């Protein structure tokens, strides 16, 4: 500022002026800056391309198969969601053809890669500020301390939402062209619901990696821990669950009804602890309206069998009813992780 404008901050400036209270919402300033950083970052571009390519190849192979098969088939179901839920080998198995690509379905790929998205935008959220030595300077500005972590979490979620949303839109549009089927309103609604649930699920991983970034001083160790957690849950999760179920509630050569029920209960319980298991159930219930055993608990299965209504189709609200508990459980897990990160951050000393 010029010499004349640089009016000396004299004694009168010393007294606090109540009219200059800052508007709350320092987190929005932090979030805006973080989001701009994310969107311009290499990791965003790389993840976007990886997600896009994986999704595109899955949808392409499925659409080829569907077009080949669907010509002679007449069903009341909509084809559109199948684009995302079926893998080429599913169709090949159903039609006794040999699958030429071993690619999993779009949603299976996304649920495998989604945690990576959450980890990528959270693993260095706080410890980077420490290693860059920007944290003391940031905290010396007139914002609350939790504005920093809230803003960073919000920016991470927004970046994830943008990446996933863009990939989903591009691939849906391309799938429509490939398939030549216009999605119904319900198809679109199911996809939107799935998108929201996926964001919630990725939010859990974002919260977990943010927790790692608060607790661990080095970004590298934080990333390693978060990625190990992802590997254990995503790749070995179902294996670990079936092992535990087999050990604790074994099914003999000719299991009794009570044994089967006990086994099923344990399986249900463990699957509903694993965020990955819950997301898969939720995905299937939302995008695949057929009632299949895999989305139901053992009790529901017994009920369905007694009413003799297997293979019926769930309406959207029924789907939502089925996935409600799963979505709530994922939200609860995310909240727990974020709360831990929040508390740890608030209690930490500013200096490294």
């Amino acid at each position, binding site marked *: 500022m010029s010499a004349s404008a640089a*009016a*000396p901050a004299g004694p009168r400036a*010393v*007294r*606090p002026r109540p009219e200059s209270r800052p508007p709350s919402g320092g987190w929005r300033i932090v979030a805006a800056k973080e989001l701009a*950083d994310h969107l311009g970052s290499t990791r965003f571009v790389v993840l976007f391309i990886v997600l896009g390519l994986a999704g595109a190849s899955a949808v392409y192979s499925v659409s080829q198969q569907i077009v080949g098969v669907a010509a002679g088939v007449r069903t009341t179901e909509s084809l559109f969601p199948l684009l995302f839920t079926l893998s080429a080998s599913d169709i090949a198995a159903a039609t006794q053809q040999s699958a030429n690509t071993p690619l999993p379905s779009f949603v299976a790929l996304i649920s495998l890669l989604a945690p990576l998205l959450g980890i990528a935008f959270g693993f260095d959220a706080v410890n980077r500020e420490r290693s860059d030595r*920007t944290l003391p300077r940031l905290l*010396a500005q007139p914002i609350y301390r939790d504005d920093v972590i809230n803003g960073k979490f919000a920016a991470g979620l927004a970046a994830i939402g943008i990446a996933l949303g863009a990939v989903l839109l591009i691939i849906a549009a391309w799938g429509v062209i490939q398939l030549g089927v216009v999605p119904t309103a319900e198809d679109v609604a199911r996809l939107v619901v799935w998108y929201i649930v996926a964001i919630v699920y990725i939010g859990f991983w974002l919260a977990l990696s943010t927790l790692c970034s608060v607790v661990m001083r080095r970004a590298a160790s934080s990333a390693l821990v978060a990625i190990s957690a992802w590997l254990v849950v995503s790749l070995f999760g179902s294996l670990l669950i079936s092992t535990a179920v087999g050990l604790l509630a074994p099914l003999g050569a000719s299991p009794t009804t009570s044994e089967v029920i006990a086994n099923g209960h344990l399986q249900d319980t463990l699957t509903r602890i694993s965020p990955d298991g819950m997301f898969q159930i939720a995905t299937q219930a939302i995008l695949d309206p057929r009632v299949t055993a895999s989305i139901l608990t053992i009790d529901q299965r017994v009920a369905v069998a007694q009413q003799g209504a297997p293979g019926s189709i769930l309406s959207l609200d029924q789907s939502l009813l089925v996935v409600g508990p799963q979505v709530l459980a994922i939200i609860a897990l995310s909240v727990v992780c974020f709360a831990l990160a929040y508390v740890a951050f608030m209690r930490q000393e*500013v200096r490294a």
Partner: protein
Amino acid sequence: MVTQPSPPAEGGRDSTLEPVIEARRLTKRYGARVAVDDLSFEVRPGEVFGLLGPNGAGKTTTVLMLLGLTEPTSGEARVVGVDPMRDPLEVKRHVGYMPDTVGFYDGLSARENLAYTARLNRVPRAIAASRITDLLAQVGLAEVAGQKVDTFSRGMRQRLGVADALLKDPSVLILDEPTASLDPEGVVELLALIERIALERRIAVLLSSHLLDQVQAICQRVGIFYRGRLIAEGSVRDLASEGSRTQDIVEVGAQFVDGRRAGVDVVMATLHGAPGVASVAPEAGTSGRVLVTGAPGIAGAVASALAAAGLRPVHLRTRVERLDAIYSRLVHAAAEAPSAAPAGRPVSVPPAARRSIRRAPGRSGHERREPGNHDGGDRHRNDDHAGGRR
């Protein structure tokens, strides 16, 4: 402008103004370790106060307590009249802070980094743009405003840090180790910048440093901080004045009346045992001079002793104590003093240090006005507080 214009105060420190920084018996413990021990001091508007001490003395902890970023174990602080623990936001709105080893977002340009700070301080966009331009020019970074910060040298980062701290138009500037790990030229530049800012804006500046000589030039008052305690406080001149000195060191070179240079051994023999002389030693190197240590003001006695022996002094100089010498003297005294000083006294000066500050043979009248005299200074301050609060 965030601050309202007000008439500039005259002179550096105006004691009629309320202090903008007050620390009252601040104490911070980390478990058993005491980082800051019963620290009291104050800084008034327009004053540059230097908090000097070795690494680990508790300087950064003190600064963080003043900003409300760390909670004191006991004691309290007032910054711009506000308790930083009660209303940290109000404090942070008025205090520009440059942390030691200041960091910036490397991927952003200098201007973008400052723009983020401006947004966090809710400086309106239009004002922020021109203020950033002005500040970058002031700190000499106008040409690199658009460059990413990761291309910046240490000195440039520090100067950007000063601009960053000034962006909110603060009434207090806290600079933590601003000159650490700068090259000599960078130090000179940065200190000149700080001095100019303090002078132009008439804001209070609290400067912490372990590089005493460098900051002594721009600090009106310094507090010497050692192991969490303030062991001396006052202007550099006061601390170095004879009143606080225990001894003088005089450089002596002499020749015989016929012009032959007198050898070191001759001079030493002459001065050994002269009145007031404590010890005599040859100066290091090949100067042929002798260092005489003795009571303050001994130079005159040395001259007469030489004359009496038929020697003519060709070099006679009392070494002026520099701040780092004062500092090491005080720290030495503090380190040697028994650490049994009971906690809870206002600014407890270890006995040895107090003695070294206070003892001034024959200068007691001068001594009473010594700001370095702790007991007097504290009593004065405590009275101030009592009067101000009731």
